[in-house]
């Protein structure tokens, strides 16, 4: 890309921070799993996609408002460097939406999620094996 065509400005910054010019689909393995969980559960009818999207929109609005509150109106125009990460809080919003819905639908309780998260944090990680070429797994 010639210099004249290089994206500039805040959106250019975002593009430049992507590690892969084509754009990695999932920046972190947990994003991939959270994505798949939401789609699978919705496809199976545990909740409608309308329900998921509705709450996702609300989470994103909340994240936008927080960014403005913390860093001023320019935050949401420039994705202020102090915000979560160059890639923004999108999948954090997704995860929050997923967890909210699971609890709302009484598929999981807040308690058991906390207990499981604590248990995983406390236990030593399993000896690693090569991930090989399979799809991203974290569990």
């Amino acid at each position: 890309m010639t210099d004249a065509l290089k994206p500039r400005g805040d959106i250019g910054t975002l593009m430049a921070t992507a590690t892969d010019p084509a754009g990695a689909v999932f920046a972190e393995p947990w994003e991939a799993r959270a994505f798949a969980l939401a789609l699978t559960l919705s496809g199976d009818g545990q909740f409608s996609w309308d329900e998921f999207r509705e709450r996702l929109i609300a989470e994103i609005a909340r994240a936008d408002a927080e960014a403005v509150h913390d860093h001023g109106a320019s935050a949401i125009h420039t994705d202020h460097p102090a915000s979560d990460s160059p890639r923004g809080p999108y999948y954090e919003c997704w995860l929050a939406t997923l967890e909210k819905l699971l609890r709302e639908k009484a598929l999981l309780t807040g308690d058991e999620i906390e207990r499981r998260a604590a248990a995983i944090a406390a236990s030593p990680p399993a000896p690693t094996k090569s991930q090989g070429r399979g799809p991203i797994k974290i569990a």
Partner: protein
Amino acid sequence: MGGMHGFGPVVPERDEPVFHAEWERRMFAIALAMMGRRAFNVDEFRRTIERMPPHHYLAATYYERWLYALENLLIEKGIVERTEIDVVMAAVRAGASPLRAPVGEPDRGSDGSDSPDAGKAQDSAGLSEALGGGARSLRYDQSYHPRFKAGDRVIARNMNPENHTRIPRYVRGHHGIVHRDWGVFVFPDTHAHGLGTKPQHCYAIEFDAHELWGGDHPAGDRVYVDLWEDYLDAILQTTAIGVKSRNGESRKRLAKAVTNARPVKPARIRAIKNTAPKPPDA
């Protein structure tokens, strides 16, 4: 086509074709069953076969001609639409079983590379999704009468953001023109909260960039937003109603004519509007 064995009557005759594959047996059975149900009769069936393009006819086997007739009659009779068959065929060709459709997969050979469990993943997508599920048939359902049509002037209501998340803030209270009626859709404001589907028309509303943002946007720049009918009010066309000078009477006529009118609030100047910092020169 003289001298051909041709179609013949439904009752098997002495030179009844041999079934070479199971699908041919099924085809025979399906065709008979449909004729039994009066979906079509044997004359229509035969005439449809005769309408096959000659090169297609000659290249086709006996039951391939039946398949042609069956498919075309089902479509002509309005029992299925050609597009429904096309979509299913795309899914099947891409390696799906009849009950599973890969998500957006391009055409590839049926080399069975998907493990049986991978097919399960696609259950989430499923054939119903491939066809758009009930969503597509709802969309074209004629029983929901649209309140607006292309060209109508409308105003996007100022609505409580807590309960109406699909009407973006930047259009609330602004005027626009109906660009297109997309058809009938489930209303998420109710559906997402277990309050029913409340199907209604959804429209692409055309907003002038200058009307939304002021400033120096080139004339002709537009923003199109898809809005459900419940988000919209008609804009009163005073000339069309012919409001005259007698205030009392004309006010009553206005009130009667526009049942959904809300007082038009002037657009608030939003804090974020036009405060975008200029991008730094790279």
